């Protein structure tokens, strides 16, 4: 019961999803769309589990006074204020001052700044890893440099470099990406098969 029922569910649902792809029947399509809807709704229920986990972990931190417990208070305060803000305007509306401004002046700037940290990390990663240690590392280094140098005005060299960069992007780049995509495609199909047939069931736990 504990193990078999989930496996049967997986098999039936996935078989249905495969069949509906080939059979253009309205009834199947309707079920297909409802299935997708269901997964989204279940996802929201799962979010409650996530929230529960978030609150518990942070509450535990505060209770146990573990390291940096003060910051757990900030997380929980932020969470509850935003939640209240989300329900402040009444049924189905979030257009109040608090919610909108928390979004625009807290979420947006932090998010954009976190994202922009990438500019620094891409520089430090390049500095550290682009070293001519081996043939492969050297190839990585050279092709990276060729692409980056396109930006730097180099006079008469600019044109051949930009041509070479274009060729790298158009030819080897395409070949490698295709090989990866074909491999990923096969691997994904194999994994899907394994899940469908219950060979791969790590996701169900093992007890």
């Amino acid at each position, binding site marked *: 019961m504990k193990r078999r029922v989930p496996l049967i569910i997986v098999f039936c649902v996935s078989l249905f999803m495969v069949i509906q792809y080939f059979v253009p029947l309205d009834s199947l399509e309707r079920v297909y769309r409802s299935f997708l809807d269901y997964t989204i709704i279940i996802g929201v229920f799962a979010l409650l589990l996530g929230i529960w986990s978030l609150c518990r972990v942070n509450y535990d931190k505060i209770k146990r006074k573990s390291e940096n417990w003060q910051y757990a208070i900030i997380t929980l305060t932020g969470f509850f204020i935003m939640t209240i803000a989300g329900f402040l305007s009444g049924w189905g509306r979030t257009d109040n001052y608090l919610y909108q401004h928390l979004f625009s002046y807290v979420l947006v700037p932090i998010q954009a700044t976190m994202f922009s940290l990438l500019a620094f990390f891409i*520089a430090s990663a390049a500095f550290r890893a682009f070293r001519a240690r081996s043939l492969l590392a050297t190839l990585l280094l050279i092709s990276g440099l060729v692409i980056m140098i396109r930006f730097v005005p180099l006079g008469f060299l600019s044109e051949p470099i930009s041509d070479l960069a274009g060729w790298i992007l*158009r030819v080897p780049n395409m070949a490698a990406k295709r090989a990866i995509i074909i491999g990923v495609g096969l691997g994904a199909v194999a994994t899907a098969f394994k899940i469908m047939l219950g060979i791969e069931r790590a996701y169900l736990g093992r007890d």
Partner: protein
Amino acid sequence: MNFLNRIVALDRRWVFLFLFVVVSMAYLLRNYFSVDITVTKEVKSIYDFIEKRNEGDKLLISFDYDPSSLAELHPMSRAIMLHCFRRGIRVVAVTLSQYGAGMVEEILREVAAEAKEAYGVDPQYGRDYCFVGYRPYPAMVILGMGENFRVFFPRDYYDTPLDSIPLMQGVRNYDDVNAVIGITSGTTADFWIVYGNARYDMPLALGVTGVMATDYYPYLGNAIFGLIGGWKGAAEYEKLIDRSADANAGMPAQVVAHLTIVLFIMIGNIGYLLSRKSTNAVS
């Protein structure tokens, strides 16, 4: 030896600091810089394509991005449309991005005004450009437009029947526009290639974000005739139409940042090679 080792294992925070200072200086002093931009073939071919058209020819431009990618894609949208208006090419605009419609309407009006100010042309809605709006399911819309634009867009954004718009009279599908330019920030670019070009074989060019660009280079020459990638592409286009704007303003920072990174890579490698030599000598 000691010095070399220190360079090889330089604390990354020096890289961060240097980059920060250099980029902020370049940004603040952007007006005192002029960057010589090398125009690439993939951008030039779009420019040439538009340049070779006759007045009155038509382009379909699809703005498939939402406000979150606005900063990266608006500059190229502006540049292309300015070019079209200057040359008297008619523009049919569409968006396949859910949050794109308001933004596209705005940029169309802005660019029309800019073209009037800059080139003395006066693009009129309905005659020189029109905007048919947004429909969901990009793949289906792209397929449907290959049959007839009216399948998904019987009326334009302002609810006027397409046949009442002078520009759209006699424009059935991709056969009646000279090319399609998709300015996109997501998978819609793939849809344009797979469902648009592969199926209906219309000339297609793409404008994409910098991260996406490498994925679309492989299609150059077969599925797409031109490609504009991120700010650099937009700056090139601005240079081609001889009108420096947003993308060019960011270029000093870009060039300096690239130069910094390249420099650091060089220093790191020189240090690495020299230090390896000296360890070899010792051993």
